[in-house]
């Protein structure tokens, strides 16, 4: 039986789909069999982020409704070993499936794959309930902004209320220059507020946009800092104990001014 992991956030646009694509690709590169499931029915995007949009024949709703067999709807990503995508339906809405059907679907997939990774839609309504129904692990993605953190907190509460204990946090799009200036919440601030375990920190990286333009997950790009962050996250998902990347050299404004004038040398 494989693991069923839902990637969720509450707020839209924080990087759920990119995270799903990269973790899935990374796990496949590590030799695991992986299926990515786009649970965002009506607003599918995982297919374009993965660059597989031209190969869709059947979708998730077709499988649930028995229009096709499960295998027929899975798109094999030929660039990576053992990586598949189950796309969402684009012309239906979230109510086309219910949590029981999703539970069955993810259960069936987990019998075939090591990892089933669900890209959850934004929000806390039906689509969210569908996406988490069959999951046994949850990853919460947030960015260092008040709106995203607030929604992440709400999602963590809802996940725990639905029995998905100990969700893991990914802090996405952190800008270290802003953190250093004190103009962006740092990692400790966010852990302090959300009080959950950290799975990884992904720095803001222009290469994400470039790779998404091309439909190639950034994790495959060796020189990308975000790619490196995702590679670390994948190894943590696999149970390895990987230290966090040293993005942080937290100097407050005062310390930097002091350093400028050589004031803090006295203390050393």
């Amino acid at each position, binding site marked *: 039986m494989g693991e069923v992991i839902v990637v969720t956030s509450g707020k839209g646009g924080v990087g759920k789909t990119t995270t799903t694509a990269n973790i899935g690709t990374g796990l496949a590169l590590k030799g695991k069999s992986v299926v990515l499931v786009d649970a965002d029915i009506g607003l599918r995007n995982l297919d374009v982020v993965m660059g597989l949009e031209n190969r869709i024949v059947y979708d998730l709703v077709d499988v649930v409704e028995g229009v096709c067999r499960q295998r027929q709807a899975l798109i094999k990503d030929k660039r990576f070993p053992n990586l598949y995508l189950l796309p969402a339906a684009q012309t239906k809405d979230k109510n086309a499936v219910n949590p029981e059907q999703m539970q069955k679907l993810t259960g069936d997939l987990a019998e075939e794959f090591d990892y089933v990774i669900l890209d959850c839609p934004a929000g806390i309504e039906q689509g969210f309930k569908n996406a988490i129904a069959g999951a046994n692990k949850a990853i919460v993605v947030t960015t260092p902004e*008040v709106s995203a953190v607030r929604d992440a907190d709400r999602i963590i509460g809802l996940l725990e209320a639905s029995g998905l204990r100990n969700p893991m946090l990914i802090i996405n799009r952190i800008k270290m220059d802003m953190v250093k200036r*004190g103009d962006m919440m740092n990692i400790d601030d966010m852990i302090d507020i959300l009080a959950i375990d950290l799975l990884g920190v992904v720095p803001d990286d222009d290469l994400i946009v470039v790779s998404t333009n091309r439909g190639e997950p950034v994790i495959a790009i060796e020189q990308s800092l975000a790619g490196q962050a995702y590679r670390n996250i994948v190894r943590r998902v696999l149970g390895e104990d990987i230290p966090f990347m040293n993005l942080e050299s937290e100097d407050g404004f005062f310390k930097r001014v002091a350093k400028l004038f050589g004031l803090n040398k006295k203390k050393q």
Partner: protein
Amino acid sequence: MDLFKWFNRSTSSKDIAKERLKLVLIHDRANVSPQFLEMIKGELIKVISDYMEIDETGLEIKLTRTKREIDDSTVPALVANIPIKRMKGNVNI
């Protein structure tokens, strides 16, 4: 030194973000609606009015945070500010 520190604090927008978030999350997590607070307010007025005459319009009640004495952890706190007009007779304080 102190001036620098003060300057530092006032310019750090992330500290403002953090403080605002912490407060808003107290309300989110407690799931406290304004109606619920109003209800508590009404009950409080009822109880306290037996003992003292209070200024009902000046009564303020809000959720905030406080440090717990035993372990210094931050916990939500209900803070009520109740202006007293005068004590009622035959009450020993």
